[in-house]
């Protein structure tokens, strides 16, 4: 290791220390007994269950919107495609709070909100609002990854599958989707992590009502605001552990993919 390498490792160590410091700071605020009690409290359990339900529902919608859209974008050229493609990235770079305000106005008692309310669907300040907000932030992640995945699949496989008698629908499910699958799964995990940690947009659309629209991040916010540090911390730790597990999954998946790719090369 050269001197330059050693000096470059200093900021790395400093940042690693900061990451560990945050985790330790979170975990060390409570004794094990207090932490256990807070994690098992009805509010934390509700927040965890609600977060999982909402984020998985949002993920479902993100997948059924994102994958076909990505396939269409990857396979077709049309006037204005570049503009549309850029537009679809806007939710990725938009501050979530701003996205939430936009969704609030869109689904409030004006524009889309009124006709939906006439149909008995009220999204604002309801658990469904949380699903809408999280779908909005998760879909572009699924779409972006899926588009790249479909673009990387050689069109020759599709042509070959056609000559073998497979219909376009079968080709999509039996050839293109499996060949693009790993990248799509990576995008799905990232989108799920993003949805489960989503705060700003969910707060604006679904509101912050205990035991009704209380996702884990909203539980942290509500309990810190009201001085219930124990529940806030337990919810925060549950979020951190969930995110960590999802990151590990992603890492395992990419390692498996590397191994397969190396196998192919050999």
């Amino acid at each position, binding site marked *: 290791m050269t001197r330059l390498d050693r000096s470059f490792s200093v900021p790395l160590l400093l940042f690693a220390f900061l990451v560990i410091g945050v985790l330790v700071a979170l975990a060390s605020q409570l004794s094990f007994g207090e932490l256990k009690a807070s994690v098992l409290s009805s509010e934390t359990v509700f927040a965890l269950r609600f977060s999982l339900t909402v984020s998985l529902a949002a993920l479902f919608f993100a997948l059924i919107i994102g994958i076909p859209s990505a396939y269409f974008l990857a396979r077709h050229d049309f006037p204005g495609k570049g503009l549309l493609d850029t537009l679809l990235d806007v939710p990725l770079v938009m501050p979530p709070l701003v996205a939430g305000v936009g969704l609030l106005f869109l689904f409030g008692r004006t524009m889309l909100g009124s006709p939906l309310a006439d149909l008995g669907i009220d999204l604002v300040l309801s658990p469904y609002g949380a699903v809408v907000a999280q779908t909005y932030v998760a879909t572009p992640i699924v779409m972006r990854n899926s588009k790249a995945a479909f673009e990387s699949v050689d069109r*020759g496989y599709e042509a*070959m599958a*056609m*000559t*073998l*008698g497979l219909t376009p629908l079968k080709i999509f499910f039996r050839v293109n989707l499996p060949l693009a699958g790993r990248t799509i799964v990576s995008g799905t995990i990232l989108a799920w992590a993003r949805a489960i940690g989503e705060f700003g947009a969910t707060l604006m659309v679904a509101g912050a009502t205990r035991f009704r629209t209380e996702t884990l991040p909203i539980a942290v916010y509500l309990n810190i605001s009201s001085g219930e540090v124990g529940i806030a911390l337990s919810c925060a730790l549950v979020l951190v552990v969930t995110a960590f597990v999802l990151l590990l999954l992603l890492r395992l998946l990419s390692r498996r993919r590397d191994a397969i790719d190396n196998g*192919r090369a*050999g």
Partner: protein
Amino acid sequence: MSEIQLTAVSTPFLRSVDLTVHHGESFVIVGPSGAGKTTLLRVIAGLAPHTGQVWLGGRSMEGVPPYLRRVGYVSQDLHLFPHLTFEGNLVLAMERLPLTKGEKRAKARELAGLVGIGGLLGRRPSTLSGGEKQRAAIARALASAPCVLLLDEPFSKVDFRTALRLRNEIKRLHKQLELTTILVTHDMAEARELGDRLAVMQLGSLQLHGASGSSPGSRDRGGPWFLERENVLACSGKRRLGNGLVEVVCAGLTLFVPDEGRDFSHITVPSSKIRFDRIPPGGSPINRFQGTITAVASTDVTVQVVIEVNRESLVAELASDRWHEMGLAEGDLIHGLIRLQDMDSCRCEDAEINGQTALRRDLV
């Protein structure tokens, strides 16, 4: 009865092609790269837009999508599905057949046995050798129960020995299955061996040549200009350098050849791979030579140049445009280069066939 009929088929690469291939016939199309051979196969398979008519088994294919044509197509790149085992590839190809899962697996075993790789059903394509992949792709095309089989340069990506074996396999398969087959190649020997009839394709036009016995390339007609000639140079004074190279003396030149760990008597260099110019061409500092242009033969698109080097002749082939750019003529002195990756070494016996030096390579 005609199984395949094309009438005035045109694409940006094909010029009003008419073709009739009879039931059970093995028809070979031979021609240089870029002549439109692959496009023609893609038109028949329904993969390339075109004008004109395509008839398969007496039915017009106008508006018929590829998945309803029952055409088995083996492309140059094979495109075996990498996420499936060899068996999975075969079973997927039987998707449209009214067979149970068990029957499909039984048929997969039968087809794998037919192409001689029965023991590899559980393997993924990435773990198969070039020849095995080629066999697997043929088996997969057959698995879809096609009425016609299209083979695009089936031996272009396998070594010479495997290619010879595969040729015999294809001959046997064709005899056994009596399946109407169109095979495209740029190799005249392959064409003569495999075709009941053959046609030559040049610049998007197809010229029929009847039975393969009267094919172009026989001695009286002279070899078609596009068939790539291989320079075959006898070697002496071999010395292994231990750095992956062998030093040899060929045609009075000291050349470095990749060491493949086996004995060899000749090196071969395709004519299109001999690089030369008035000034030394760029690239590797080794395997350079000087020579004199002693003959030039040209067609619309290519020029063949005979270069005399130390009383031996090398044949180089290049595009006409490039030749005219260089401004060279007979009698001019040139600087040449043979790149390591363009050389192949072999144990061969020389034989004079069709006025060209042909090789009988040792198959051991």
